C-alpha cells in the first residue's frame, strides 16, 4: 500500500516539476528594468514616497494659524 503511495507521490512531484520547468522566463535585466519602470511611472502618485502636504493628508495634523 505504502509503495503505491510513494509512486503516486513521486509521479505528482515529477508532473509538478515538469510544469515548472516548462515555464517561459525572462532575463533578470528585463524583469528588473520593468520593475523600475513601474516604480518611476507610479512614483508621483505614491503619497508615502513623495509626501503630501499636511492639508491633503487626513492623518497629518493641520497646524493652527497663530496670530503673532
Amino acid at each position, binding site marked *: 500500500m505504502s509503495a503505491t503511495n510513494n509512486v503516486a507521490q513521486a509521479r505528482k512531484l515529477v508532473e509538478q516539476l515538469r510544469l515548472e520547468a516548462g515555464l517561459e522566463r525572462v*532575463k*533578470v535585466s528585463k*524583469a528588473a528594468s520593468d520593475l523600475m519602470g513601474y516604480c518611476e511611472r507610479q512614483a508621483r502618485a505614491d503619497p508615502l514616497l513623495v509626501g503630501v502636504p499636511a492639508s491633503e493628508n487626513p*492623518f497629518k*495634523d493641520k497646524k493652527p494659524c497663530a496670530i503673532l
Partner: protein
Amino acid sequence: MATDGLHENETLASLRSEAESLKGKLDEERAKLHDVELHQVAERVEALGQFVMKTRRTLKGHGNKVLCMDWCKDKRRIVSSSQDGKVIVWDSFSTNKEHAVTMPCTWVMACAYAPSGCAIACGGLDNKCSVYPLTFDKNENMAAKKKSVAMHTNYLSACSFTNSDMQGCDKKAMVWDMRSGQCVQAFETHESDINSVRYYPSGDAFASGSDDATCRLYDLRADREVAIYSKESIIFGASSVDFSLSGRLLFAGYNDYTINVWDVLKGSRVSILFGHENRVSTLRVSPDGTAFCSGSWDHTLRVWA
C-alpha cells in the same frame, strides 16, 4: 507478487531520478537568466531622500496582542483582531471604535474587511471563518447575524475577501492558479519560515518576510529571487510586509518591535521606525497609500504617515 514489487521499485527509482534531473534543469534555466542584479540595474535611479514618518494615530482598546488588521476600501476604517478574542472596527481618523464583536474563542488570528465595506470576516482557533455584517443599528446584535462561511481542520491563519493566490508555507513561497488549483511556481530561498507574502503593485513580483530576519523580492516572470533586504544588525524575524503604492518602498514589521522601510529597487534601508513596545505582528498600507497601519503584541495599532 514479487515481480509487481520489483516493477514498483523501478518506477519509484526512475521517477525519483527524473525529479532530481528536473530540479537540476530548473536551477540551470533560472541561472541562465541571472545576467544582472536588480540593485545594479537600479544604480541609475535617483536615491530616495530623507523620510519623516511618524505615528499619527494610536488605536488603543484591545486587551491583548493584536494579531491581524485590514483596511476598509474607504481608506479610513480599520478592522483588527486580537488574542483577547475581540474584533474591533475603528475609524482611524478619529480613533473611535465603531463596532466590537467578541468571538467565541481567543486568538483571532485573521480578519479582513469586505470590499463593500459592509462586512468583516474573521477566524482563528475556532477553525472557522465567520462573516459579520456591519450594522450601525444599536439594537442589532452583531454576533447574532454572524454567518459561518468555512470550516477548516485547523486554525485559521489568514483570510481575505479577494482571491488570495499566495501562500507562505514553511520556507517555500508558492504561487497558485485559482482556476486550476495548481501550483504554478515555487520559490525556496528563505532559510526559515515565511511569515508574510505580498504582491508587488504591478502583479509581476512579490515580497516575503521571514523568521530568517530577511525580506526578499521574487520576480514571477524571471522566476527567481531578485533582491534580499537584510542587515547584519537585523537579527529578528520579519512578521509582515507591504508595499507603498508605487512599489518603491517596502514596509516590514519585525519581532524586535521595529518597522524597517526598504528601497525596493536599490536594496537599502531608508528608515527605521520605533514606537511599538512589543513585536509588530501585522502591517498594511492604506488603499490610497497615504498611510500604513501596524498592529502589535503591545495591544495597540499605530497609523504612520
